[in-house]
């Protein structure tokens, strides 16, 4: 058996794209600057050179055009993987995503499939200018007909992207851009993915309270859990992975054991993923909850200028503060 490789999240994503391009002639990669440049984050590095300009396509500069043409390609039987350059630039394509990508399978009574993957680097913490640090995942998770996932480590980056591309349903794939250069080991030679695409994963077992996080916040949640051990607290951390559908069972299961839940994300708290998880958990584990579900997220303000983003973003201290509050109940 081959050794597990040590790769960055970026490298793992690149390897997943390369794998699908190699094995499925219907897979196309498209977006702005995905060709020679290899994307502004180099996720598509080298792919155009190896697979040609008609499989790794530098599109004209319109997001609606990218997604709209992907829809047409899907009708023709292709499996397009579209890159949106940054989170804040997905909105010009919102109409095509919400009214077309999400609905055509339904509109056609199942005759047409939309196996489109929309890759979006998301989240803050990289010192960027406006529109380059947003977390728009809730817009898509609220949209029926879309599946929405995000990864937090190289192994998931690799396998989940492969699974997303293979999915016959459209998948919005959020990439935690500030973790692109995090390394981890990963076995690309396994016959299949370690987990189904839409399962959550307990990444740290614990008994005193549960923290649910996803994407860039998983590492932060794990740090918080580690720091909490100093106060003798044993926190369970769940990497949600799939934002739509949500693996509610795994979360509820954990809360039934711990009695307490804190949900963490970068997106603004109001109507963020934490709202949905809180609503579900209080419904399904009402008698298990010893404290209200608490949410740690971005404030209900626009993403701030980068010199103040570290204060705005949830961090270890704010997570631990919420843990304190839930344990104080």
């Amino acid at each position, binding site marked *: 058996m081959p050794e597990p490789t040590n790769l960055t999240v970026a490298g793992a994503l690149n390897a997943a794209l390369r794998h699908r391009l190699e094995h499925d002639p219907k897979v196309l990669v498209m977006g702005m600057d995905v060709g020679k440049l290899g994307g502004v984050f180099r996720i598509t590095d080298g792919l155009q050179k190896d697979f040609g300009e008609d499989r790794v396509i530098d599109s004209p500069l319109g997001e609606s055009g990218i997604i709209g043409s992907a829809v047409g390609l899907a009708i023709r039987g292709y499996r397009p993987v579209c890159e949106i350059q940054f989170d804040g630039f997905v909105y010009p394509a919102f109409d095509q995503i919400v009214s077309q990508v999400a609905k055509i399978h339904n509109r056609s009574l199942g005759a047409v499939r939309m196996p489109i993957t929309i890759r979006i680097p998301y989240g803050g913490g990289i010192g960027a200018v406006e529109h380059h640090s947003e977390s728009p995942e809730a817009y898509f998770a609220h949209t029926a007909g879309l599946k929405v996932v995000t990864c937090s480590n190289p192994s998931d980056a690799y396998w989940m992207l492969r699974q997303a591309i293979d999915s016959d349903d459209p998948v919005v794939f959020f990439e935690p851009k500030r973790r692109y250069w995090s390394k981890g080991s990963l076995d690309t030679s396994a016959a299949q993915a370690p987990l189904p695409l839409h399962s959550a994963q307990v990444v740290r077992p614990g008994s005193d309270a549960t923290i649910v996080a996803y994407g860039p916040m998983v590492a932060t949640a794990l740090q918080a859990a580690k720091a909490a051990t100093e106060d003798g607290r044993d926190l369970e951390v769940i990497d949600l992975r799939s934002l739509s*559908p949500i693996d509610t069972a795994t979360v509820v299961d954990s809360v039934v054991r711990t009695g307490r839940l804190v949900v963490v994300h970068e997106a603004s708290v109001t109507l963020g993923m934490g709202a949905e998880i809180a609503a579900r958990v209080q419904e399904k584990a009402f008698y298990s909850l010893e404290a209200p579900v608490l949410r740690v997220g971005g404030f209900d303000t626009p993403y701030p200028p980068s010199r103040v983003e570290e204060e705005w973003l949830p961090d270890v201290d704010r997570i631990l503060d919420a843990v304190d509050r839930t344990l104080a109940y």
Partner: protein
Amino acid sequence: MTLHGHVPPEPDLVQLLTPEGTRVQHPDFPLEITDEEIKSLYRDLALVRRFDGEATALQRQGELGLWASCLGQEAAQVGAGRALRTQDMAFPTYREHGVAWCRDVDPVTLLGMFRGVSLGGWNPNENNFNLYTIVLGAQALHAVGYAMGVTRDGAVGTGEPDRDTAVLAFFGDGASSQGDVNEAFIWAAAGNLPVVFYCQNNQWAISEPVERQSRVPLFHRAAGFGFPGIRIDGNDVLACLAVSRVALDEARSGQGPTLIEAYTYRMGAHTTSDDPTRYRLSEELETWKHRDPIERVRAYLVRQAGVAQDFFDGIDAEAEELAVRIRAACRALPDPGPLSVFDNVFVDLPDELAEQREGYREYLSAFEGAGH
């Protein structure tokens, strides 16, 4: 020098059959066509009109929620529709009943959408006729993407008549103002794609006259993006056929996109919900009645081709039969069951949604038990 002040002359439109039914030649677009073929086009036009009229009646009687009539635009649609080859793909708006007809989509299926039993429901790849798209202009980009696929499949410029494929994208004068349509022009030009944009300028976007969208003829738009545009008499089925054929041929052979502006008129209301007397003068309608797309073909057939009355009687009878059939079939369309709303949301139904479905099933069955 001044930058402004150069007014281009109002363009000619390509016409091969005058409103009076006289066959005329156009130096650039000769059309070889037999009288038998013209009779066949007449049949298309007449049946489409009858179907469309029947749908309007069905709406009035409460059988449909809405109907968007194509009255007056039959020639624009049949001309384009009959220029398509089997392997070509059409991307309609919500009004291309005449094209649907040419693509053999069952009119009853179309009615189903307006009755509210489905949101579309035909298979676009079966007849190479995409689902109706209601969001203005979105389909222009789908057409372009499809054409990218065609190109990648090597189905352009091979010279094989059954292989080379073109894509025909419909939109209206109003929709031409949407960003998506203009992005489609950019994509098509940049990729030299085998797509023909077919704009039915029916003079109105609900209550807004085309002058609200553009102060120059819409076909001019194409040149600015780097491909040819042309205006045709959209009420002349022969002109529509001839020019569509050339544009589609050029697309199939790898010469890239074209914009055709079919200059026509929406004879009826925008939809059955609309009341055009609020915003347009009846004189306008009267003028256009003289340019009726069907009358001129009939006049040609009677006067120039010597076609006898029983041909027309035959078509009328066929139209009546069609109307009777679709009326009955429309009324018989079954309503979808409540649980059907969970079908086809995904190929792979997630557990969570299956659970929601199950909860709803239980809820419904409780009513049955309670005799609700």
